[in-house]
């Protein structure tokens, strides 16, 4: 699902020096996560300092397997609180990745009644007509 309504722009991410690597990767159809090489730990969202060792130069970008489990979700059913660029209903899901961090995303080819906590999902990418690349999650075999 997630159908865009033509003519309404979708919001772009806020790209700065701390998360440039993340969004550059998305552009290349890769999902990367920030990783502290000292603590051997994935961190999300990206930040300028590792909260465990407080180092500012041990972080790198590591590709995620892109696989995870649907951890929670909401379904937008009314225009009142929805973003008008999307056709209703649409789901916003929280996916717990194999690396242990959770990311918020939309779904791809998952019907509303299939959206359920525990569903195994994996990442896919879509290039939008406006030049943006977005990541979404689709069903996968468990």
């Amino acid at each position, binding site marked *: 699902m997630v159908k865009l309504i033509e003519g309404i722009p979708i919001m772009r991410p806020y790209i700065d020096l701390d998360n440039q690597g993340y969004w550059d990767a998305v552009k290349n159809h890769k999902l990367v996560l920030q990783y502290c090489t000292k603590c051997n730990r994935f961190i999300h969202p990206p930040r300028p300092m590792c909260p465990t060792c407080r180092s500012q130069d041990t972080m790198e970008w590591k590709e995620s397997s892109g696989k995870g489990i649907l951890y929670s979700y909401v379904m937008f059913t009314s225009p009142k*609180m929805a973003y008008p660029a999307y056709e209703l209903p649409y789901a916003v899901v929280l996916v717990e990745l194999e690396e242990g961090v959770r990311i*918020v995303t939309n779904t791809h080819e998952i019907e509303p009644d299939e959206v359920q906590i525990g569903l195994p999902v994996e990442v896919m990418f879509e290039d939008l007509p406006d030049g943006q690349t977005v990541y979404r999650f689709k069903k996968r075999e468990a």
Partner: protein
Amino acid sequence: MLQEYMDRKYRTDNKPSVEANLIKNNVAIVGIGQTQYTKNSGRDELDLACEAIQNAVDDAGLKMSDIDGFDTFILDRLSLPMLINSLGTPNVRFSCEVSGGGGAGCAVAVHAAAAVATGQADYVCCYRSLNEASGHRYGRGDDFIEYMPVALTPNYGYIWPLGFVTPLGWAGVWGRRWMHEFNITREQLGWWPVVLREYAQNNPEATYFGRPMTHEDYMESPMIVDPLKLHDCCVNTDGAAAYIITTVERAKDLKQTPAIIAASAQCCPIEQEIQTIYQRPSISGLVETWYVGQELYRVAECGPDDIDVAQLYDPYSIGGIIQLEELGFCERGEGGKFVEGGDNIRIDGKIPCNTAGGLLSEAYLHGWNLVIEGVRQIRGTSYNQVKDVELSMVTGGPGVASSGIILRR
């Protein structure tokens, strides 16, 4: 991370001692004031603020020139110098804004109390003025297109572009996880809004006064953001409210029974994002509210059983019910059962909650109306007065850096 919360063991050795807390029992709320709560005030927010503040000053038996401090939280649209130039307060010595959105509902009182307790101001006015019903409303989807082509902050950038721009949706994610983990039913959720609506029927100032709602009505109301229905969500309000804080010493010479601050707390636990608190080990609880509760009980030297009445910041029903769990009014995961049938939160129940109608049925004044009702319960002037109130609790918003106070007679 957040080990204290995960273990439910609050560390006290790294906190300032209770003896060192100058706010406890030394500071009181002595004046409350509000405007009418409407759907279209036809006035600007500065105008509304002036009226509410004047009412609070009159209520306390003070003169406007006595006020020497102002406090609110961010998202405020007023210019403080313009407010002061209208009110004519000659020498303002203290001003502050607290971040965290609705979580700061009580933090404003905390900072005002700190100013008063340390002699940095004599009378601090905490104010809020909104035209959310007729004017700009925070957190509506369609607002964003015209003025926000790019997400507001780096961390919102992972979330907002997904059609996910409203607090209601953000909360739905952890709300659903809570419902999933503890088998909470929609029928159970409905009792929170239903009981609050009952309270509002006795409060002529409430937005939903004269418009009762049954549990059946609730069940039939439309879904807004699954898992939240229309009546799970707060009202929109035009209006303003204010209260005045001073020392207990000065309060003795004033008009009203002071509502003494027995404890105040603020907290911002790690991985805080406005509502999108998804990186914590567990998201089916409210870390912030737990911390606030623990700190309040530590400073006030009491427990949940001692609290007579509570005003919990409830922008949506789940936010209110999970707070009952985190504050210890019921066991974790038992919130659904606790509110079922509504008796536990009614006026002679275990813990009467949001007795003026709360954010769902009285007004969405970012928690100011909750503080005011908390004070009324101490004074004995509530429209839904609980008997013999000794301790009255008020909290700030769920899922954001939060806050709380316990008031006593």
